[in-house]
């Protein structure tokens, strides 16, 4: 067997030929979604996910994972399971019928009015 020269490998006593044992269920902590705010008054933006045993620890990890470059003034953490998620099967609810252009700003024909007004001046 090859003995690794990496001190981390030798210290950890990882045997290279041994496959990594599969994880048991619930071996991992649950996940928290992390939101950071770049400056006061800005909206919080989603930046990623951390594993943590509680919200306080999720904040600790979120800060180091996503806030350590000095780009944050505030962090929110929310349990992933507390986020209501829509179904991808339902993504057609975001489709809109083309005939309803009047509901969109682009649907208004105002250029003609503007040009008419300009000519009048």
């Amino acid at each position: 067997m090859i003995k690794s020269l990496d001190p981390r490998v030798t210290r950890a006593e990882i045997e290279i030929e041994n496959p990594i044992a599969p994880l048991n269920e619930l071996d991992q902590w649950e996940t928290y979604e992390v939101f950071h705010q770049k400056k006061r008054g800005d909206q919080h933006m989603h930046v990623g996910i951390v594993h943590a045993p509680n919200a306080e620890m999720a904040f600790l990890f979120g800060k180091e994972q996503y806030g350590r470059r000095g780009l944050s003034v505030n962090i929110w953490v929310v349990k992933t399971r507390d986020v209501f998620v829509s179904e991808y099967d339902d993504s057609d609810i975001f489709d809109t019928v083309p005939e309803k252009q009047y509901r969109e700003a682009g649907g208004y024909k105002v250029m003609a009015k503007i040009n008419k007004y300009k000519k009048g001046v």
Partner: protein
Amino acid sequence: MNQNSSEAIKELLYKMADDLLIIGHRNSEWTGLGPILEEDISFSSMAQDKIGQAQALYQLLNDLGEQEPDTVAFTRNANQFHNAQLVELPNGEYDFSLVRHFLYDHADQLRFEALANSSYEPLAKVARKVKGELKYHVFHANTWMVKLGSANEESHNRMQAAFNEAWNYALGMFEKSSFEDQLIAEGVFEGEETLQEKWLANITPYLIKAGIEIPASTSWNPVFGGRIGNHTANLSPLVEEMSEVFRFDPTAEW
């Protein structure tokens, strides 16, 4: 500043910087081996902070006429280091590393807090600059201490055992220097005795929450000596490993 106070300040800077460098290096030995990815990154990041803080203090020493920070950090032998023995002890299991982190970082935060008002302005400036980093470090330590101290029987027993093992070494952090009275009189530093009192008052509420007991004061037996270069056998291999690359070619440009 007269010659005498310069020596006193150097002694203070050396012990602080050496504590930071050695614990920073020890904690960095967890990089890649941390219990979970997120904690690995957090602990490693704090280790880097500590080495950065050490560098700032070695720079102050350089300004007082000592050698370059890298030279001071990487070319001395173990018996020329002034760190407390607590920080050189091997990492052991994660429980011991966390307990040491808790005990050391509380003291470190209070020391810098006091120095933010030091009459020695260059040091006061550094102390004010590191305030945010230390706040995070202590918050991290408190959270783990309370969580593992009270999670289940195994975690509690491990934390208590690690705590008992670390305790007398932790008391050794407050070893007085021969310049103690002078530093206090000149308003440079409030002194080790005051620091230890504050430290005890600060850690106690978290220990109560964690259900961790401080050994009876009659059994306290501080491990002194680190400040004057007496170290355990653990420091020498650490210093050797830490400085291996630097010593290979001290003139290399990085």
